[in-house]
């Protein structure tokens, strides 16, 4: 008789009102294995691992650990059985220290008194063993995202986790941090831990996993050995059709400068200088990518250009018109389109209908308003046209924006913003959270606009995406330009160093790099 696999998932089904999130999902994980769960957004990966961590209960199906069937009523049960999880959005309490976060919810040896001293020693021991450097006395809010992730991993190990689940762990990391994370995972594997690694990035799955289970629409497509497959095959399984990794991008047809930014400084929400001395030009027919780890001044830069955030100093001019104090309403006159990062809170009014959202910018002008009265007929006709043109999947134009999927919500924004043939397009993470199909759509539309002669700023944290779409790439670190590079003339390694702030260009290079 053979020993059973470490973890067996058997026919797990979980439904939420109106959606089957997991449909008879089965796979197994061995001790000392890194098992990737691959799938698009909404394929059911997170639901599945939440079930595994006891956060909700499956409708049917069984979970066996070390051959024995287990029932998980809460995460407490999961922890007690040696299951640890690093959530996509870290589950850390910001004002508490690292040590406090790590012992939180555990019995203290001196119960009910806290015993942080011995705990800190144990944390330091774990840090050394696995190469996870953390300072037990630091408060979490002071730590970088990469460090917070290390705290999460130590937290799971401190609880004696044999099975570690990581939900999209690389989404927030620089390439170097990803590299370090992978080293940690390899060490965990060598120590006999089982690891479930969730991702929708094929390169990472190929690099780190032993086996891959692909999920699509809540079902398992297949489980394969990583060594016996390739990116194309995985992508086919994930999306259900052939996927083009490269699209044809004609060479840029550069026109006049549309945007000039000089010595721009912008304050962030926490009263820190979020953008420092940024200067660049942007011309018609050009896509300028803005790369960097999330939170390094990208949003503040875009918001300043969009007139949503005042510049602390420096100049911005659009089409030769220098503007001291921007008003968001100026965007209309200046013919600037803005695709905001937070599409649900900034881009759309979720409880307004699709047709209302489609005229959110123009509702006070003819033909949508006449003498101060809304012209519903014109508004609806406009909506019907856009829905067709942008392939928005909505039952009709009067449903609330809230009821649409993420991809279709983004299409509503694109339809509104791009229909006026803008001169300048500010696209902030326009593909974040979208599946492969919707991503292709968004990128295709932006390339169309580029061919038409629009100047485009394209902010993304996905390196691959930026490199394939942009004509030039600006790398930001703590609000400063670390480099202005051309895709094809730079390696991902170099980009990573710039994103981490370890490589920067000289003042001379900066001057030269301004112009396209």
């Amino acid at each position, binding site marked *: 008789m053979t020993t059973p696999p470490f973890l067996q998932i058997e026919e797990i089904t979980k439904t939420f009102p109106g959606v089957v999130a997991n449909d008879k999902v089965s796979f197994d994980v061995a001790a000392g294995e890194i098992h990737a769960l691959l799938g698009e957004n909404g394929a059911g990966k*997170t639901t599945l691992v*939440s079930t595994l*961590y006891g*956060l*909700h209960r499956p409708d049917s199906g069984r979970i066996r650990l070390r051959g024995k069937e287990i029932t998980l009523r*809460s*995460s*407490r049960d999961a*922890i007690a059985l040696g299951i640890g*999880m690093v*959530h996509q959005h*870290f*589950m*850390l*309490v*910001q*004002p*508490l220290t690292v040590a*406090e*976060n790590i*012992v*939180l*919810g*555990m*019995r*203290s040896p001196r*119960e*009910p*008194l*806290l015993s942080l001293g011995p705990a800190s020693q144990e944390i330091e021991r774990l840090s050394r063993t696995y190469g996870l450097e953390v300072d037990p006395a630091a408060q979490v809010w002071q730590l970088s995202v990469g460090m917070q992730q290390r705290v999460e991993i130590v*937290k799971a190990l401190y609880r004696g986790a044999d099975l570690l689940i990581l939900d999209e762990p690389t989404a927030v990391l620089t390439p170097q941090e990803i590299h370090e994370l992978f080293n940690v995972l390899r060490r965990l594997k060598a120590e006999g831990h089982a690891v479930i690694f969730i991702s929708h990035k094929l390169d990472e799955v190929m690099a780190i996993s032993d086996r891959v289970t692909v999920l699509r629409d809540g079902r398992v497509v297949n489980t394969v050995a990583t060594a016996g497959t390739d990116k194309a095959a995985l992508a086919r399984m994930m999306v259900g059709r052939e996927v083009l990794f490269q699209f044809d991008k004609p060479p840029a047809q550069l026109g006049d400068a549309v945007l000039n930014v000089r010595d721009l400084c912008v304050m962030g929400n926490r009263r820190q200088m979020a953008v420092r001395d940024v200067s660049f030009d942007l011309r018609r027919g050009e896509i300028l990518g803005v790369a960097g780890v999330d939170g390094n001044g990208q949003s503040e830069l875009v918001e300043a250009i969009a007139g949503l955030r005042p510049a602390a100093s420096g100049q911005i001019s659009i089409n030769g018109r220098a503007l001291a104090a921007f008003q968001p309403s100026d965007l209309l006159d200046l013919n600037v389109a803005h695709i905001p990062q937070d599409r649900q809170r900034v881009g759309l009014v979720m409880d307004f209908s699709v047709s209302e959202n489609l005229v959110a910018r123009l509702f006070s002008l003819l033909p949508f308003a006449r003498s101060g009265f809304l012209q519903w007929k014109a508004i609806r006709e406009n909506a019907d046209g856009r829905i067709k043109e942008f392939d928005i999947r909505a039952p009709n134009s009067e449903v609330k924006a809230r009821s649409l999927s993420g991809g279709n919500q983004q299409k509503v924004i694109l339809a509104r913003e791009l229909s006026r043939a803008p001169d300048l397009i500010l696209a902030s993470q326009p593909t974040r959270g979208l599946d492969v199909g919707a991503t292709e759509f968004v990128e295709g539309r932006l390339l169309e606009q580029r061919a038409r002669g629009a100047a485009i700023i394209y902010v993304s944290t996905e390196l691959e995406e930026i490199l394939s779409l942009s004509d030039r790439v600006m790398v930001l670190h703590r609000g400063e330009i670390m480099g202005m590079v051309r895709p094809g003339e730079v390696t991902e390694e170099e980009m990573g160093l710039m994103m981490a702030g370890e490589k920067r260009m000289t003042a001379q290079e900066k001057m030269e790099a301004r112009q396209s």
Partner: protein
Amino acid sequence: MLETLQQLLWSGDLIYATLRLTTPLLFAALGGLMCERAGVLNIGLEGMMLGGALTAYVVALRMGNPWLGILAALFVGAITGLLFAVVVVTFRANQIVSAVGMNILMLGLTGVALRAAVGLSIGQSPAPTIPIWEIPGLAGLPLIGPVLFAHLPFVYLVFVLAGAMAFIFYRTTWGLAIRAVGENPRAAETVGIDVIRVRYATVVWSGIFAAVGGAILSIGYLNTFQEGLTAGRGFIAFSAIIFGRYTPLGTLLASLLFGFTDALQLRIQAFGVQIPYQFLVVLPYIVTLLALFVAGRSKGPAASGLPYAPGEE
């Protein structure tokens, strides 16, 4: 006039009255602080105090024993806390609206209950009161003895409790759980803390603390009860939490300031200074407003006032 004021400020009497008037406030404030740190906003302290004050009075009067009155107030405080928890924790109702409702309900209910229990007679019978407890050895000290060590037992108790609460918050696993639940309940849940249970416990305790504060007013100091007896002290207690920056020590100091102001205005009245008494009576409320103004941005726990639904994304 200046001389009178000087005389007033240096009198041990003023310090005595400050401690005496701080005590009910601080009880309520500590209760409020506890559930506030767990993320439940309790501006229902006022109503909870009223409930405790009435219960203690009626039971002490009927049973002829003030300690039974206190015991009954504890019980009623726990029940009110529990009810509030059911509404705002389990049913996730808006915490401010629910608390306002609770305050109005308690104001009416205590008025009706008072008439039902003791009738409509104007001259209410005084209830037996809690006796002063002079701390042996210390109460005899010259000058400070009678000022600091000849109070109701609750006066000493509340200062001990403030210290105990600081210890619990920062030195025990319970306190860590409470702080985590108030800041990030979802994170707390993922490490196996029962968020709902923590919130229930702290809200029930806040009810008990506030009720004791109210009971001290009725059978500790006044020996009677009248409608609206607390006169906004529950709200002042709530302000003390904010002014005290959500820490036990800060809350203690803020309560002392408010208690001092109240004591001061009473003394000024007693000294017969020629200021219309109406101006003096509003003094504590004005100081409360000023304090909140001065406090500026006192940041509460991140999840304060937000209902939590376990297990939902």
